[in-house]
């Protein structure tokens, strides 16, 4: 059913992505691809894989942005542009516009955990849900003609045939920089919720009113080199080699 759950789901499973440590290595992108191309629903196809127009379906992609500081208080790197790597997949919104626009009921938000899924057998491939999503979380698979999206690895997180420790989304398990965290964002005491609270986790495009479940942890404020350690160099000082050697002899005496 494409109406959103009437009551808030008891659990809101989702991801917390730490922009302070993501190095843009694309590990999550490819792990997602390989897990899901043989998993939930149709394969994630690639068109023209060895040709000029190579392009495939991905449920998670890493963008890179350049941010040029202006305005705000930028400690330690004022005026210096920086690169921020930015992974993006479905945010499993509370008010998921992609769900309500679906004409067939293929798109739905699970009441038990808030995961937004597509029942591919019911999907007609009209593409309207992809239009409705401001985040670009949905991609039509051109070979299957159905809409694909992040399932939060629903076929991993509840999978009793794999070890409990591995029952996390593929992208989270593989991330070498530990930039991706998975958990219940409805539970204020969950590790992810505490992380969001501590680091000031944010919603993407809050103005779209989608109320995303996934949160992003912004880059931590930087501290200028040497700030707070000026004393480390000033404690003693040496004028030229002579003074240095005198000091050195003193040190050696004491050893």
């Amino acid at each position, binding site marked *: 059913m494409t109406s959103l759950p009437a009551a808030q789901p008891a659990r809101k499973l989702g991801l917390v992505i730490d922009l302070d440590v993501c190095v843009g290595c694309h*590990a999550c992108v490819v792990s997602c691809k390989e897990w899901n191309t043989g*998993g939930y629903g149709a394969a994630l196809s690639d068109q023209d894989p060895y*040709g000029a127009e190579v392009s495939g379906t991905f449920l998670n992609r890493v963008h890179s942005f350049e941010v040029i500081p202006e305005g705000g208080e930028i400690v330690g790197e004022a005026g210096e542009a920086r690169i*921020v790597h930015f992974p993006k997949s479905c945010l499993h919104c509370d008010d998921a516009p992609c769900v309500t626009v679906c004409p067939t009921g293929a798109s739905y938000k699970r*009441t038990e955990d808030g995961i937004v899924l597509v029942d591919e057998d019911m999907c007609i491939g009209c593409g309207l849900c992809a239009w409705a999503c401001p985040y670009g979380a949905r991609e039509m698979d051109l070979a299957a003609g159905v809409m694909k999206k992040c399932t939060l690895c629903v076929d991993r997180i509840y999978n009793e045939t794999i070890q409990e420790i591995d029952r996390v989304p593929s992208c989270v398990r593989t991330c070498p920089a530990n930039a991706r965290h998975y958990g219940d964002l409805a539970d204020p005491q969950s590790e992810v919720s505490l992380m969001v609270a501590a680091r000031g986790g944010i919603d993407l495009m809050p103005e779209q009113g989608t109320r995303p479940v996934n949160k992003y942890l912004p880059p931590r404020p930087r501290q200028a*080199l*040497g700030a707070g350690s000026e004393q480390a160099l000033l404690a003693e000082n040496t004028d030229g080699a002579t003074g240095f050697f005198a000091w050195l002899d003193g040190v*050696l005496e004491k050893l």
Partner: protein
Amino acid sequence: MKSKPRVELSRPVSDEVRKTTCYMCACRCGIDVHIKDGKIRYIEGNRDHPVNKGVLCAKGSAGIMQHYSPARLRAPLLRTGPRGSGEFKEISWEEALGIATGWLSAVRADDPKKLAFFTGRDQSQSLTGFWAQQFGTPNYAAHGGFCSVNMAAAGIMTIGGAFWEFGAPDWDRTKLFIMFGVAEDHDSNPLKMGIAKIKKNGARFVSVNPVRTGYSAVADNWIGIRPGTDGLLILAVVHELLKARKIDVDYLMRYSNAPWLVIDAPGTSEHGLFARDADGKPLVFETVTERVVPKGTAGARPALSGRYTLEDGRAVTPSFALLADKYLDEKYAPEAVAAETGVAAETIRGLAAEIARAAFDEAIFIEQPWTDMNGERHDGYVGRPVSFHAMRGLSAHSNGFQTARALHMLQVLIGAVDCPGAFRFEPPYPKPLEAHPTPHGKAEHFGSNKPLSGPHLGFPRGPEDLLVDADGKPQRIDKAFSWDAPISAHGLMHMVIANAHAGDPYPIDVLFLYMANMAWNSSMNTAGVIAMLEDKDPATGEYKIPKIIYSDAYASETVAYADLILPDTTYLERHDCISMLDRPISEPDAVQDAIRWPVVEPDRDVRGFQSVMLDLGARLKLPGFVDQRGNSIYKDYADYIVRHERRPGIGPLAGFRGANGDRTGRGAANPDQLKRYIENGSFFSAHIPLEAQFFKHANRNYQDFAVRMGFFDTPQPVTFQLYSETLQKFRLSAEGLREPLAPETHRQRIRDSFDPLPDWYRPFEEAAVERDQFPYHAITQRPAAMYHSWGSMNPWLRQIHTRNPLYVPGPICDRHGLKDGDWVHLISSHGRIKVEIARMDAVNASTIWTWNAIGKRKGAWSLDTDVPEARKGFLMNHLIHELLPPKGDGLRWSNSDPVTGQAAWYDLRVRIEKAEPGETSEPRFPAMAEPGGRRGHPDELRYGQEWAK
């Protein structure tokens, strides 16, 4: 509304999990390969594996697509068309090995040096080196010469080990981590995991790199340095630390050669050498009794400064006095180096302050009694939690060796080598210079049908160990260990084709290469190298390099230039051994090695390269490969891994040795060894006892452990060589003071670059060209999702980097009126390329850059000829010559570090000019045919569709 239970939540992932070792880059992570219906369903990181602990990078996860790539070679190939055309016929292995044996046995009988055998992406150098030694050619090396030999050689000569593969930062304890240069391509998962860890711990991460991508993007502080000036920055930091007296005097006195006495006798053959006793032991000046004693004398408190006179009247000074004198000079003051490095004085001072604060104000103490090599007991380990990492960024400059030495010196000065919180060695390192062999390859070392008398590669202790003839002429085809590059510990693979083509120092008959893309991204001056490979001797009509054998798994650009192709398997189809004899996967706390095994069987007529080498060795009847009756000793590589012994009880693998598999390090061969490895996840790990985990260079407990494990037969402690006597010996030769004398042609160069104390000089290309004619730097960075050129045949990876723009700093764009999508000519003293640009601001303002090795040649890698990789992708290599611009001395010098011969990729200077809009990057190359005939490829992939429900 209740959602319908539409999803099958507990589907088994696969039929079986096979654990092996990844080879999508050089990290050597453990992987779980899920097999379903005989196909690879999923590859994930092995949670139990010590290298990656479950994580896996983009390349690792894309292994499926690498394994099933249409670019895989299918059968042995014999060239039918001209070189470069890609025209081959498929032949049988019997025929292929027959041809190879014919070529090689003729060379071996006639003149073994006419074989040049060089390996690229090889992780079995203990086998390939052994093979080459038994064959008897002096011309063998791997690819370190164009990779990171500066790092390796400087590390070994200074502290007995270098960064990656020799050690790692103490991620759990470090409080300040400083990374120099691009490092995204080696040890990438451990580095990412480590960076995440230190960020979590609230430690600081400083990145020194002209380009702020990858790891630099998340650094707490980014120092956008001008390329090639890192050494100067480091020496300025040293200056500040000395000035502020922030050095670990006790550490220097105990573990370094700081107190060793240096002879002060200008104009003599011993000036600048260490004063030694009759046994050759370096002397120190004992301050309590005020006399000269050999180093290591119990109870001695050696002087670090002063000037003394030996009994024989010679004047001496502790080496540290020379060091302090040198770096306290105001020419190393932050203000003095700011303009050259492009780093503000206040930033340099801040960096020094941060290092001082972390090293001394945040020192760690771990209570764990241990005993040093002098028998002294210590209550625990003092930790200086400042750690460093560097790789190609420092290495790939003509001043890279001295720069890497400067960095190691900095580590030692603050007492931050192999202590808690700092860089820590990984067994079998540390290893002193003396434990490495000297190079072999002089005329007396080889001859017809006999093995080389010792290992090819090693470390000359002085000019007397060079591989030169009586006239000082090089003996090796790559001119390694000659006056051109005396300490070229890894050879100079990048010079082999040029030298062989020129017949300088001599022509060769067979060039045998493994997995190195020398006709494309692994060579400087790519078009020139291609022409050399295609060039024929007008007299005979034969190619100047007559026979080329090449082994690779994929249809790379280089395949088209070989005459005989021995197709390798993919990494999932083969046995491999990541060996303690070679480059193991040890961690600071554990001795570790690993294997690969065929988790899927080849579906093509291909063979693992190492098994082929064993087969060739047997066909050539090489000692060590055949028994007395001439029968081959080893069935294949798997058999070799288990049964080969380098010394009694020491084989390629350290784990599960002995008849019962319960011996570690030393022990008899165990026929079930590979089975045990596979059961264990394809790796072996033995923990180092806590009392042996730190200060390994001087820790009696560790040294005993190392002997027990079989790394050495006697303890091999390391004294850190801040002052290098070896370098001084070369300088004395260059000054005409010490035999053998350096040739006149080389004297100035050696005097300038062999300072026994770490030094900085302008990179050669920058010094040679007019700076205002070529005002900018051009370098490459390594994308995390591609390993060198191996990735474009992989549809999942090539979607990430389908082409590479030239990234131009904003100020340069503004100066030249450039915007995204414009085309430019980038011009060096050697050549020009025409490429498309993109603007970038998070970069050093004088540094233009692009991603490495994304550009591909038309027709290579089984891609369509109109792919963006070939159309818009490009290589910086076209701008870089293997020789420096002429400087009027009648000689053409190699574009390499003068000490090690390391290829100076990052010395490139350029100018930029706006060009007419284009469609295709220039230079352009004609398309190559698909070797062995085109079999086509699918227009659409739906991998795993058969498992969809």
